[in-house]
């Protein structure tokens, strides 16, 4: 088989139009006769809506209609649990500031903006619960009273081996409390789109999305329409990072178009994205780890409380996934884990790059760094001793499937950073002198793993089609790939084109990937869970093989036919069956495929200001097979960028359910100046036998180790553990002052 396309840095399919600025994002679409819509958002994090009076707003010239709950055919939705009202009706509750009361539709954006201020809403404020640990108590105010008598809506238990015996056998026990922060996705393209009725009378939405077919599964019942009468078109997407798994705007556009039977455009401003859309879950964690003197782990005991905010969104699968990784890529024979999903009146929390594996990586890697410190052991050596290999028994009692590349990733990163393996021991490099007398250098290492695809018994499937245009001799002239795989920027369409070119033995330029339109392409599942390369790739390669067989039959039949198409539906369970958690023991086979990352950071901390600078960074990721090495490097650097913000600067602050972080100026996303001065991306290729050409996923794994590696390096520099992060200059400065003078 030729490898002329796979593994090469071919130009991304969308690159030229993106550098020209000609590629259209959702806000760049307009239609003849379009109206403009603005949302009337809740003014309280918890309150009963007493009265909604839109008369003044509707009297404003240019206003066409103010939609309220009465205009929504079936007024509920939700990505997994339909616990969210589309518009809150009089007498019902708002549960966070992202709940909506009404939508103002006008002839101009200016009129809609002015009119939304004229909608008068009377509220009866209710007690706010803003700390999930308080929300778990029986006396706490209930957020979703209709869903039972507790704010806790999921409790996962893992009981493995004999953890009490495990701790009794331990020579060292490390115990910590962690608090991981909210993160705003900050996709650069604010939510926007247009809804209209298409030529076949379908309610149609043009918008960013991560899973358009699943959006339709929520929109159709909301409008009480069969799914054939709704349609979603996904043009260029300006980033997502999990933030567009939930619908923020699609259902509102569909509703407006359906009610008014006219095109309706809506564009959120940045402040709406910041304060009215979902975030990464904060976790409150108690964690104990026991180990023998030689570093062998004996037991963990973990309690995780995840703040879900006002609605469930994807909190249940996020904590299910996060819990499964809470002991890391390490063999731990005895474990007790309890995880809780809790409603509060804070911002709704949802998927964000890592889907629970990111918070998990912070807690288990901080524990490993502390353990290495307590044992006086090299941090690479401690990890190497406990890391997974093929067949290792993981936290939930299952054997890791073949293709485990975490040791290779850590080894490559450590060697690149200057570690030496001497007499069976790992020896770290000298750090060199700091750049000024008041600065201290620190070096640390961290690992991470994450599932590829949906877990816990979900039937994860992707359907991909391929069309071949042949010449008279049966040679392939052009190829079209049909897939609902949304390209949020990472290059899904390019990867599919490369794989199709490889599978069909044609040039990359002969392959075109169809744009995502639910009436034109099959459902390939979501752009999430680092799954598209693996699962859409698996479907595509099979569709290509089937198309080639059909082509060969045509040639034999000498029919003169010049068009062939094939479609394949690939199921993740065909590789490994997964199952839900056992309710009592938590034992299960949680995931069918994995990806791995290991990172090393050299930092310098200014003891006078508490500021951390990252001098050098080594990021190794085991991707199985790098289909496009340039794009893998982009995922690596992008994941590290997000991890650097998570570790050091990004903080979404709420007080009693009210955001104080309202604009981008309040929320510090790292600039090019804040990135590690030297960055080395190392791609390791330990093939996944079940992946297409051995490929795994990469998008999420690259961000997992970054926060713990940076914060562990801060400890190595100045001797403080920042267990509640981001490790802002202020936090580090105070921590060093509290522990006395920084160590020499």
């Amino acid at each position: 088989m030729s490898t002329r396309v796979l593994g090469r840095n071919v130009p991304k399919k969308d690159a030229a139009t993106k550098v020209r600025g000609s590629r259209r994002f959702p806000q760049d679409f307009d239609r003849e006769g379009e109206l403009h819509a603005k949302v009337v958002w809740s003014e309280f994090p918890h309150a009963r809506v007493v009265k909604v009076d839109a008369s003044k707003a509707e009297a404003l010239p240019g206003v066409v209609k103010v939609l309220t709950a009465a205009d929504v055919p079936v007024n509920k939705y939700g990505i997994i649990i339909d616990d969210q009202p589309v518009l809150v009706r009089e007498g019902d509750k708002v549960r966070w500031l992202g709940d909506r009361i009404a939508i103002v539709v006008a002839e101009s954006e200016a009129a809609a903006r002015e009119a939304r201020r004229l909608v008068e809403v009377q509220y009866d404020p209710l007690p706010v619960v803003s700390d999930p640990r308080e929300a778990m108590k029986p006396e706490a105010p209930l957020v979703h009273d209709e869903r039972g008598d507790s704010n806790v809506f999921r409790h996962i238990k893992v009981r493995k081996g004999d953890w009490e015996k495990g701790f009794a056998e331990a020579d060292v026990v490390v115990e910590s409390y962690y608090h991981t922060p909210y993160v705003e996705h900050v996709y650069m393209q604010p939510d926007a789109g247009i809804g209209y009725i298409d030529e076949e009378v379908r309610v149609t939405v043009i918008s960013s999305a991560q899973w358009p077919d699943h959006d339709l599964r929520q929109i159709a019942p909301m409008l009480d329409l069969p799914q054939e009468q709704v349609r979603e078109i996904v043009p260029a997407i300006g980033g997502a990072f999990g933030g567009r798994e939930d619908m923020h705007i699609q259902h509102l556009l569909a509703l407006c178009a359906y009610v008014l039977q006219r095109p309706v455009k809506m564009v959120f401003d940045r402040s709406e994205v910041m304060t009215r859309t979902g975030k990464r879950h904060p976790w409150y964690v108690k964690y104990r780890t026991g180990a023998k003197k030689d570093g062998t782990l004996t037991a963990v005991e973990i309690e995780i409380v995840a703040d879900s905010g006002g609605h469930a969104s994807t909190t249940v699968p996020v904590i299910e996934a996060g819990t499964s990784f809470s002991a890391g890529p390490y063999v731990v024979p005895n474990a007790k884990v309890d995880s809780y999903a809790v409603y509060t009146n804070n911002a709704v929390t949802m998927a964000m790059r890592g889907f629970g594996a990111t918070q998990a990586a912070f807690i288990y890697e901080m524990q490993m760094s502390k353990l290495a410190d307590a044992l006086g052991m090299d941090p690479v050596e401690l990890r190497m001793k406990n890391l997974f290999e093929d067949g290792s028994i993981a936290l939930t009692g299952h054997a890791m499937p073949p293709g485990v590349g975490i040791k290779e990733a850590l080894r490559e990163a450590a060697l690149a950073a200057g570690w030496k393996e001497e007499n069976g021991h790992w020896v770290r490099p000298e750090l060199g002198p700091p750049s000024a007398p008041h600065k201290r250098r620190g070096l640390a290492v961290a690992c991470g793993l994450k599932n590829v695809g949906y877990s816990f018994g979900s039937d994860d499937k992707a359907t991909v089609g391929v069309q071949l245009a042949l010449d008279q001799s049966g040679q392939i002239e052009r190829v079209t790939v049909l897939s609902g795989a949304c390209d949020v920027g990472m290059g899904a369409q390019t990867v599919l084109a490369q794989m199709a070119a490889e599978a069909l033995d044609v040039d990359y330029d002969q392959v075109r990937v169809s744009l995502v339109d639910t009436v034109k392409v099959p459902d390939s599942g979501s752009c999430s869970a680092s799954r598209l390369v693996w699962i859409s790739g698996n479907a595509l390669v099979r569709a290509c093989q089937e198309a080639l067989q059909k082509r060969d039959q045509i040639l034999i039949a000498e029919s003169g036919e010049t068009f062939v198409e094939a479609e394949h539906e690939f199921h993740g369970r065909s590789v490994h069956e997964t199952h839900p958690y056992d309710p009592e023991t938590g034992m299960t086979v949680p995931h069918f495929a994995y990806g791995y990352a290991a990172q090393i950071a050299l930092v310098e901390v200014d003891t006078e200001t508490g500021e951390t600078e990252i001098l050098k960074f080594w990021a190794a990721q085991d991707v199985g097979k790098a289909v496009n090495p340039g794009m893998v490097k982009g995922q690596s650097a992008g994941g590290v960028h997000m991890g650097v913000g998570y570790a050091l600067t990004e903080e979404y602050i709420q007080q009693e359910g009210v955001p104080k972080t309202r604009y981008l100026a309040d929320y510090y996303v790292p600039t090019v100046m804040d990135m590690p001065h030297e960055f080395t991306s190392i791609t390791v290729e330990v093939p996944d036998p079940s992946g297409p050409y051995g490929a795994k996923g990469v998008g999420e794994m690259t961000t997992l180790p970054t926060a713990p590696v940076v914060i562990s390096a801060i400890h190595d520099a100045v001797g403080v553990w920042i267990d509640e992060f981001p490790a802002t200059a202020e936090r580090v400065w105070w921590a060093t002052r509290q522990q006395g003078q920084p160590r020499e």
Partner: protein
Amino acid sequence: MPTLNMVLNGKEVSVDVEPGDLLVHVLRDKLGQIGTKLSCGEGECGACTVLVDGLAMTSCIYPALKAQGRRVTTIEGLSEGRALHPIQQAFVDATAPQCGYCIPGMVMSAKALLDHNPHPSEEEIKEGLSGNICRCTGYYQIVEAVKLAAERMAGEGGTQ
């Protein structure tokens, strides 16, 4: 309604604007320059960067009437016909764009930088791009693209 007269991408244009209109809205909504992107609306992220008399400006906080009589260059003004500008081509070759929403602004900041400093050091490139936020790439391939563009343009005998 006042009239804004400016030279947009080398051509004189006249357009009626409200006194409070911002340049980004006039460019996008009245002049069809959709390559200029609006993201933060407060001059923080640089997605809306255009050149005004050769200087990089965030058009989301730039009053449209301030452009009266000035030369404004948008991303659409960089390439003519099929050929990409060397900076744009370098962004493609360095696998710099991911989602691409920040990219027009990045390219315009790079253009302003290279117009004034055709041989920037890596530090100068980073300074030149420090007003542009990207959430996807981690910036390294964007910095590589600007380096590559500078090398290629030096080879061609200067900037365009």
